[in-house]
């Protein structure tokens, strides 16, 4: 038998090696492994995504993650400029050099750029646009998003080789925004026909990068398109991209994201948790690029049909009892602006709500609850009316830090005598509850650059009208805003719609979602497009 002291010595030796190793490397900050050398390779950018989407054909699938790589593979007919609310958001030429909208708003005519080639060598023209749009609306491909972005699409007509017209059955102002999104990116008809169902693994566009390889859950690579000479104005430089190749990898575990960035596995990492983001900000080797996401604010929609929330005084009391600033500081590390309404401040048409409508005012909350007849008679800390305690049921999902937000709400509302019960469900289960109406509160958190998504969530006829509101004024505003093409008029209508939503108190807004991107200091020129989620990789350089 091996004597015990020999084993003891071996263990000691192993420990010593480890300690010496740690001491020698901990402050080095340089990469030594072969893998790290690969990461350091001049023109290959490693980009961390947060989930591996199930299906990545932009015409078919709906996730935001698919757009992060594919925004650079596809060009769109138009591009949306600007992101900040101060900037007037407008559209600039992409694959379409110019366009006209008919007086009645039913026909959009696009004059296409000449000399554009797909990655497979085939030419881009009006016939290609027709193939793409008809593919998207074909029920057989089961489009999850793109087909709906086209709204009341009726048909597409090839006028000549470089002129194409889209016919609608009703005026639809969001159309240009839709056409600026990667989901309506232009794919090569030749390759679509060649690959059929397998197209998502062989995608071919006209963009600054070619699709190379995709291994679900593992990696997705795109390589530079050296022929690229038709970049839109929103790109900082013309000609081919700087980077040779971009490798995307998937990091579903939030706790591991900052570590992967620090370990040198990736140069860019999306959705860094706020606490890690604060730490990375202190480190000169990294930077945090916070990108506000246009669309819905993170908030909890109130079911106006279910007592006691059918009383607007109770809904307003909840709104006034909510300290949004405290939630934003505690859970989102102060990186997110506190939301005041249904849209985020990065969205076209956003207006900040006046304090008369949205503020933290527990005294007024108490007054409103008492006016509505809720008093704590039995002294248990929960108000009641006619023997019914003020007990609310919130349905939550695990993402968006919703459970943490709801726990803080629970304690904030307890102060004014409201008891909040929390139910965390899977997404499909929560949607099922949303359909049946068996809830008081349910979250909203969808991204989108056009405020028309208010129509989806607050129009009385919508399948996703979770507040179950039926308000003629609001319906009218949302319908008109969808049809009017003048941006200034639209913005005014949406301002009124947002105010109407908060007058009726259809939701408790919490924060504007902000994507905290962790970026290595070697990455230069990284910007994000008007959608917020999608990087403009064309201009990125590695130093």
């Amino acid at each position, binding site marked *: 038998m091996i004597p015990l002291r020999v084993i003891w010595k071996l263990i000691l030796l192993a420990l010593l090696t480890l300690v010496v190793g740690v001491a020698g490397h901990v402050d080095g900050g*340089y990469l030594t*492994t072969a893998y790290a050398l690969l990461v350091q390779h001049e023109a290959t950018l490693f980009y961390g995504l947060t989930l591996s989407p*199930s*299906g990545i054909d932009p015409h078919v*699938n709906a996730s935001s993650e698919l757009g992060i790589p594919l925004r650079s593979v596809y060009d769109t007919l138009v591009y949306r400029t600007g992101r900040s609310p101060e900037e007037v958001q407008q559209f600039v030429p992409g694959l379409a050099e110019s366009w006209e909208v008919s007086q009645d708003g039913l026909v959009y005519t696009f004059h296409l750029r000449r000399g554009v080639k797909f990655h497979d060598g085939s030419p881009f023209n009006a016939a290609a646009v027709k193939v793409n749009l008809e593919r998207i609306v074909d029920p057989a491909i089961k489009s999850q998003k793109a087909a709906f972005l086209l709204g009341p699409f009726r048909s597409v007509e090839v006028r000549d080789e470089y002129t194409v017209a889209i016919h609608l059955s009703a005026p639809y102002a969001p159309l240009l925004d839709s056409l600026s999104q990667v989901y309506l990116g232009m794919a090569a008809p030749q390759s679509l026909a060649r690959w059929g169902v397998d197209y998502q693994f062989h995608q071919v566009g006209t963009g600054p990068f070619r699709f190379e390889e995709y291994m679900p*859950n593992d990696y997705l690579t795109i390589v530079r398109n050296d022929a690229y000479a038709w970049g839109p104005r929103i790109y900082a430089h013309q000609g081919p991209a700087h980077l040779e190749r971009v490798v995307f990898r998937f990091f579903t575990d939030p706790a591991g994201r900052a570590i992967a960035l620090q*370990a040198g596995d990736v140069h860019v990492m999306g959705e860094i948790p706020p606490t890690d983001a604060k730490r990375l900000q202190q480190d000169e080797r990294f930077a945090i690029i916070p990108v506000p996401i246009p669309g819905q604010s993170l908030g909890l929609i109130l079911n106006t049909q279910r007592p006691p929330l059918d009383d607007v005084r109770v809904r307003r009391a909840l709104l006034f009892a909510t300290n949004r600033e405290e939630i934003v500081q505690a859970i989102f590390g102060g990186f997110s602006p506190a939301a005041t309404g249904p849209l985020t401040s990065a969205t076209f048409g956003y207006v900040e709500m006046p304090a008369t409508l949205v503020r933290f005012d527990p005294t007024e909350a108490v007054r409103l609850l008492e006016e509505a007849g809720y008093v704590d008679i039995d002294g248990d800390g929960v108000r009641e009316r006619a023997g019914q305690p003020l007990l609310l049921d919130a349905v939550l999902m695990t993402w968006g830090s919703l459970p943490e937000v709801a726990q803080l709400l629970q304690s904030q509302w307890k102060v004014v005598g409201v008891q909040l019960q929390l139910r965390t469900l899977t997404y499909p289960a929560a949607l099922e509850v949303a359909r049946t109406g068996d809830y008081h509160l349910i979250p909203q958190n969808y991204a989108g650059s056009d405020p028309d*998504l208010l129509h989806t969530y607050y129009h009385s006829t919508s399948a996703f009208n979770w507040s179950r509101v039926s308000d003629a004024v609001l319906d009218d505003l949302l319908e008109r805003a969808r049809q009017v093409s003048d941006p200034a008029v639209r913005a005014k209508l949406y301002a009124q719609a947002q105010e109407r939503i908060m007058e009726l108190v259809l939701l408790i807004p919490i924060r504007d979602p902000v994507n905290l991107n962790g970026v290595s200091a070697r990455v230069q020129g990284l910007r994000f497009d008007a959608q917020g989620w999608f990087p403009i990789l064309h201009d990125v350089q590695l130093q």
Partner: protein
Amino acid sequence: MLILIARRLVGAIFALWGIATLVFVLLRVLPGDPARTILAASGASETAITQARQQMGLDEALPIQYSRYLWNLARGDLGRSLFSNRPVLLTLAEQLPSTFELAVAALTITIVLGLGLGVLAALYVGSWVDRVTVGIAVLGVSTPLFWSGLLLIWLFSLALRWLPASGAGSWRHLIMPATLLGFVGAAPLARLIRSNLLTALQADYITVARSKGLPEALVLLRHALRNALLPSLNLIGLQAGFLLGGAVVTETVFARPGLGRVVVDAILWKDLPVVQGAVLLVASTYVVINLGVDLIAMVLDPRQRES
């Protein structure tokens, strides 16, 4: 023995049928409508959602859905993912190599570590080696993987910069996840081997072997360990199944591709065909491994051959 194997195979087919049925029923009891989930972010109308449900064949009566499912299964058709529209078989198959690689490496570590620690603890019973071994075993069982995984990454990727923090593809990527996963399995194995070996070492045949003047190593390896190992075989079999299905956390922490992540995503999103296919795949693996374990036991243990 051939009859025995045949009998076991028939049993296995029935077991798989039972599992297929159980998954089918469970998935339909769970709340949630895949059509609604897929279209939730799109602003689809209620009519569009109904249409999508029809297209997926989810509006049909359950018995019809069930018989179509079984019929397709019998033909080896696992269907297509509701989300990606790809064949389930392909979706699972492309994740299998990574999971398999991790499982084999982890199992090797489990066996080597479990055997080593178990034997060591039994030989030096009561000494500090024994106590440390038991301590390590307890630690292995009770430490959550997502935490110890991060700790490993911090140490070996961030501080030492010896190993990549994430991904798959080379043996360097395999070291940390395999060690972590292997360690968890090694803990119960070490404790089982220790107690079995202690029992065996007390047995009369060991005294006989020793009094014959056999070298201690031979006594240990040929006589004591061989008997002590038999009960551990089943445990190793169970571990192997667990590794295939249960590597989810490890895969997530180390951002590795693999079956586990596909299954979890599919359950969370209610991608029915993918969940059904994956459960069947894992279940078949269990069945095959258990069959293998039984065969090995028969080879090792004459008593089992006779019964």
